[in-house]
């Protein structure tokens, strides 16, 4: 709560305090005194007692006393001041007024006259016994400002009736609500000035004044220093209240539409007849504070910044919602980056950044005023809604003659204000507009005039402008110029030192001479400068034609810098001592001309070439037609470095004009010229680089020196920029062949194929059969390949000696350069026969053969009897032949021999397979030993044997069975019933038969040809009788599942049988169990199927 007290009188707080202390003491002593006087004179009942005197103004005393009512009624009093000139007072009241008496004690005699008799009472009266009680105050005016919830109180201090300089203490109490709670108590001190004056006090309530009635009362206390009596507070003034808000503002919720700083504390109230149910501030529910019957309030502390449309405060009753809106925002930030500058020296643009957003928009937004102190003028910011968040700016019209400006930017909004200050010399703050309307006009080929427009009044300053000059070839150039500022806006400046006939791009920017900022660059302006005459003549060279009947003159086009325009044509003239002759004008794209001269008339001509453009002709370039002869000229060789070829020559002071190196492809026909280059006379070397130089190509270079405009060939050079290996093989032939040598001859490789300077040949030779050469690609590192390196490149033949006669040789010849070895040509040669060796080679075997024949004949003759005995005895009876007997014993058991003696018997469908000792056969049929060697080929091999077996005669078989039965345990003959189809006989393997014999008797075991353990044998033996009765595949097959490889294994669990998807024939590898249901083992047909497949197994 704020208290505004407008003090009109001087405050004397210190004095007041002291006076209060002293008056208290006086008051106490006077009470005691009056008491004693009353004791002396008022003991009796009915007489006046307790005389009290007060004063409102220190000028009159108002005294009263107590009297019994009985006596009082109808009593008259006479009051006399003893020893005073003041007349006695007659009164019927118990009070009287007298002027203030002096400080001394005064005796007051009150005579009471009534029916019952008279009485006299005396009092001693002194100023100290008088109380100073100011008169009750009247509030002069009480008003309320509802918009600010402020009370304004005015009252009169009655200073005219009170002593001057008296200190007055005012006490003001504000009450509120219907039950009059104290809202605030304020105490103020003033000094009286001896006349009436109005005092003013203001107070702002934290509760809107509309919410509940407010009442005010006031009293005072006068602290008069010179009054010795008692001082008391005045009575309270009558209560004054604030009536409700103006009727036209018929609102229910207060305050309305307040704008407050963020962080404020506020109280909102709602005054409605019906009960308020809820209240919310924004989206936040608030607890209700009851003010009185009709009024409830909410208190909000530390209000946050509001949204754009404010924060709603809503009170809801059963039937309606009442509300108000509060806008909480920040006071304006101090304007940041305040900057004032001018673009045209006509108006000043001040811009600034508003800083932190205030959170207040629309009519509550910050208002800016730009105030200029010297001129006293100001400009108000008008908000541009489109640029709300950008830098703000204000435009201030410049004042003629004023250069220094002191600006104050004042920002204010409903919750605060701020300002920023800037002092500027505006001539130092010129940021010109962008130059426009850039125009170029010609002066001459190297100078132009640049015109531009720059709006503004710069008459008082100089402008600094920067011209950017751009060419595609020489890049960018900046030139600074200073121009006098103009009131008009058209500026012009000449720009020189330009190149003729060049496309320039100009642009310009400006600032003031007291640099502040560059303007933006103007738009670019392209301009082609005028043509100038070509600055020099073309670079020329001449060559005689091959027949010497004409000179061809060549020239190079002038560079852009030299041409200074578009070259239109060339003028050629030539002369000797005779008159000058001209060739017809040659248009530009042509850069050669032919002049008909005869080389053999030894007339030296000077040839001149002039280039011409629209501006004029170039200086002539001259060359003489003849050369200075050079006798001792050698052809040198050179190889390039990197991209070019480096030449050196000795400095020759005789060479006065220049050096020329010309070059051509060595294979080019006359005139030899690809290009030429000129070098100054003082040079001693040159690097010739030429984009079209190719590796491996031979070029001829000619170095000319120039004396007195005449050229002399100084050197002739053959060179490569880079050497490569030859691209072809040398073509060689065998010229001559003898028994021990070969003469080889080869031809030169053509220059274009050589691709480098020839450094030698490599010749390889190797003995070998035709078509077996390994020379190719194996040139070294092989001892049987001999190689000869021929480094004498003039050598064209080679004789290879120490060769063997009538022997084939492979030959290979390769050429090489520093760039590498080229491909080789190969050849095969057979040396001629050596005749002596041939004779010896024939004679020696013949002699040996004759000798052996003779010795053999002699021996045979001498031992003829023994031979006859041994090899050709007399023919005996074959029955007795020892040799046959020997054979029989050996071959006993062989069915072959045996069956030779047998008559073939007709096979029938009963087959008895014999068990026999196969020992001899095993030795014979080693191939069949392999367990996998049971292919069809072998089957066919074995077939005759099997047929023999089939061709069996029962009587012999019986014998064989008997013997076999004794040999093999568990083995037995079996009779297999098969049908005609099963006549197919799988080849039998003896060893398998042996193995299977052990199990064969136990019935069919598909995998039984693998090693069988004794355990299995035992088991099989146990079943022997049953199994021996015949093969019954069904009994076992029933236990199988078609695809289970485990089933057979379960029988011979220890075997290492490889599992099959189906039981498999050992020999045929046919699946024993046909796929799927076609032939189920369970079916009755399965019986004969198995029999069919395995009938070869139990063939014991």
């Amino acid at each position, binding site marked *: 709560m704020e208290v505004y007290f407008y003090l009109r009188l001087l405050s004397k707080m210190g004095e007041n305090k002291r006076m209060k202390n002293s008056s208290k003491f006086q008051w106490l002593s006077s009470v005691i005194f009056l008491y004693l006087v009353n004791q002396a004179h008022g003991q009796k009942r009915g007489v006046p007692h307790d005389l009290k005197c007060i004063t409102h103004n220190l000028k009159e005393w108002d005294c009263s006393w107590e009297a019994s009512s009985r006596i009082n009624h109808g009593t008259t009093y006479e009051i006399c001041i003893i020893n005073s000139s003041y007349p006695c007072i007659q009164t019927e009241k118990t009070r009287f007024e007298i002027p203030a008496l002096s400080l001394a004690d005064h005796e007051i005699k009150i005579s009471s006259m009534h029916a019952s008799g008279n009485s006299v009472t005396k009092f001693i009266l002194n100023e100290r016994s008088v109380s100073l009680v100011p008169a009750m105050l009247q509030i002069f005016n009480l008003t309320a400002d509802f918009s600010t919830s402020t009370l304004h109180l005015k009252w009169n201090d009655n200073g005219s009736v009170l002593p001057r300089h008296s200190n007055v203490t005012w006490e003001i109490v504000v009450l509120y609500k219907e039950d009059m709670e104290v809202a605030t108590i304020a105490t103020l001190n003033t000094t009286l000035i001896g006349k009436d004056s109005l005092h003013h006090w203001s107070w702002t309530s934290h509760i809107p004044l509309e919410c509940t009635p407010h009442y005010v009362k006031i009293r005072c206390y006068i602290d008069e220093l010179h009054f010795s009596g008692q001082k008391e507070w005045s009575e309270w003034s009558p209560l004054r209240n604030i009536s409700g808000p103006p009727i036209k503002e018929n609102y229910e919720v207060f305050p309305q539409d307040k704008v407050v700083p963020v962080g404020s504390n506020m109280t909102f109230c709602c005054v409605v007849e019906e009960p308020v149910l809820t209240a919310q501030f924004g989206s936040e529910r608030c607890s209700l504070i009851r003010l009185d019957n009709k009024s409830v309030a909410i208190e909000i502390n530390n209000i946050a910044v509001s949204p754009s449309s404010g924060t*709603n405060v809503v009170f809801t009753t059963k039937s*309606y919602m009442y*509300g108000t809106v509060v806008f909480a925002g920040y006071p304006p930030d101090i304007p940041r980056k305040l900057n004032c500058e001018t673009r045209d020296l006509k108006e000043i643009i001040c811009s600034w950044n508003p800083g932190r957003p205030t959170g207040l928009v629309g009519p509550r937004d910050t208002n800016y005023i730009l105030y200029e102190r010297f001129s006293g003028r100001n400009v108000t910011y008008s908000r541009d809604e489109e640029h709300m968040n950008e830098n703000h700016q204000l435009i201030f019209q410049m004042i003629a003659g004023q250069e220094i400006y002191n600006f104050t930017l004042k920002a204010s909004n409903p919750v605060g204000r701020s300002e920023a200050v800037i002092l500027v010399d505006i001539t130092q703050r010129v940021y010109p507009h962008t130059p426009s309307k850039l125009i170029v006009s010609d002066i001459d080929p190297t100078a132009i005039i640049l015109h531009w427009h720059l709006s503004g009044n710069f008459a008082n300053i100089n402008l600094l402008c920067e011209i950017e000059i751009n060419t595609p070839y020489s890049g960018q150039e900046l030139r600074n110029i200073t121009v006098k500022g103009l009131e008009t806006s058209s500026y012009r400046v000449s720009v020189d030192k330009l190149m003729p006939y060049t496309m320039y791009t100009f642009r310009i920017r400006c600032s003031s001479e007291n640099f502040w900022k560059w303007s933006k660059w103007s738009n670019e302006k392209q301009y082609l400068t005028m043509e100038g005459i070509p600055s020099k003549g073309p670079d020329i060279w001449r060559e005689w034609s091959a027949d010497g009947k004409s000179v061809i003159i060549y020239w190079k086009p002038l560079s852009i810098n030299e041409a200074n325009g578009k070259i239109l044509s060339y003028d050629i003239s030539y002369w000797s001592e005779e008159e000058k002759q001209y060739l017809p004008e040659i248009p530009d794209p042509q850069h050669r001309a032919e002049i008909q001269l005869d080389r053999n008339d030894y007339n030296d001509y000077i040839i001149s070439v002039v280039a011409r453009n629209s501006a004029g002709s170039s200086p002539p370039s001259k060359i003489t037609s003849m050369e200075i002869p050079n006798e001792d000229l050698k052809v040198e060789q050179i190889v390039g470095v990197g991209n070019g070829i480096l030449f050196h020559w000795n400095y020759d002071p005789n060479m006065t004009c220049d050096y020329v190196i010309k070059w051509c492809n060595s294979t080019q026909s006359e005139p030899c010229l690809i290009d030429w280059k000129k070098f100054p006379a003082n040079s001693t070397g040159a690097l010739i680089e030429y984009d079209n130089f190719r590796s491996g190509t031979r070029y001829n270079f000619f170095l000319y020196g120039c004396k007195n405009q005449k050229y002399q060939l100084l050197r002739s050079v053959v060179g490569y920029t880079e050497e490569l290996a030859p691209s072809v093989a040398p073509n060689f032939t065998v010229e001559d062949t003898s028994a021990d040598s070969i003469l080889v001859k080869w031809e030169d490789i053509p220059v274009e194929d050589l691709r480098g300077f020839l450094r030698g040949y490599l010749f390889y030779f190797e003995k070998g059969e035709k078509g077996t050469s390994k020379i190719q690609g194996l040139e070294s590192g092989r001892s049987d390949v001999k190689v000869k390196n021929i480094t004498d490149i003039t050598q064209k033949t080679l004789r290879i000696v120490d060769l063997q006669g009538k022997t084939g040789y492979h030959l290979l010849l390769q050429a090489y350069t520093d760039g590498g070895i080229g491909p080789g040509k190969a050849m095969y040669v057979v040396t001629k026969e050596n005749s002596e060796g041939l004779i010896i080679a024939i004679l020696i075997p013949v002699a040996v053969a004759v000798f052996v024949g003779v010795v053999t004949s002699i021996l045979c003759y001498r031992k003829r009897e023994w031979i006859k005995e041994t090899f050709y005895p007399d023919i005996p009876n074959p029955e007795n032949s020892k040799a046959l007997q020997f054979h029989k014993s050996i071959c006993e058991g062989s069915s072959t021999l045996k069956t030779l003696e047998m008559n073939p018997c007709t096979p029938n469908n009963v087959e008895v397979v014999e068990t026999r000792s196969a020992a001899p056969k095993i030795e014979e049929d080693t191939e069949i030993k392999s367990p996998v060697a049971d292919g069809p080929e072998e089957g066919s091999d074995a077939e005759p044997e099997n047929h023999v077996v089939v061709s069996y005669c029962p009587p012999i078989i019986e014998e064989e069975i008997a013997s076999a039965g004794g040999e093999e345990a568990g083995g037995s003959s079996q009779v297999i019933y098969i049908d005609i189809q099963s006549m197919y006989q799988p080849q039998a393997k003896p060893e398998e038969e042996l193995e299977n014999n052990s199990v064969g008797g136990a019935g069919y075991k598909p995998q039984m040809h693998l090693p069988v353990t004794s355990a299995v044998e035992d088991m099989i033996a146990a079943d022997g009788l049953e199994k021996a009765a015949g093969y019954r595949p069904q009994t076992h097959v029933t236990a199988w599942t078609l695809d289970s490889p485990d089933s057979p294994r379960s029988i011979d669990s220890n075997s290492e049988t490889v599992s099959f998807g189906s039981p498999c024939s050992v020999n045929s590898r046919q699946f024993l169990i046909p796929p799927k249901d076609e032939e189920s083992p369970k079916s009755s047909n399965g019986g004969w199927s198995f029999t069919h497949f395995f009938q070869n197994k139990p063939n014991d």
Partner: protein
Amino acid sequence: APFVLGAPVSLADSINRTYNLALYMQKNSSVLVQTYLQYQGSPFSDPGFSAPEIQLSSLAPAAVPFTLWRSLGDGERLVQVHRAFSALAQHLQLVSDDQADLNPGSSVLLSQLAAARLRAQGLMSNIACAITVLGVSVPPEMDTLGPAPFGASVFQRKCRGYVVTREYGHWTDRAVRDLALLKAKYVA
């Protein structure tokens, strides 16, 4: 502006065209009130905000008892709609002005309010044309606002805007219904 005079307009054409315009406005009217509330802060912007108790004396509500509505004469029916949209157009201008102060940065809301006002005026013109074709005199445009625009508190302005945008929707619905009735009667 009202229809170009001179070219005779058939009642069926006029009603049909007006009906189509009302139908088009109906599609956008609910967007307007939602956009409006969104910018007014809580509790207006709270989901599902509705305060049917808030009314504007200067704006006649669209709701009318069915029998009364059904028994309206064709001319009276159109005159009521015309009067309502005349009032709505004026109120929408008022709301636009209020929101330009309260939400100067919300171009979406301001443009929707401006568009709604233009459509209200457009519908008014069309109805005026139909009334003329019916042979009834078009009621003169009146100042429906009275002293309301001045001295209203911000909260009252917000409420006023709410009522106007809400009633704009209601009246658009009512116009569609009214015109549908007339369309059924006059348009084959």
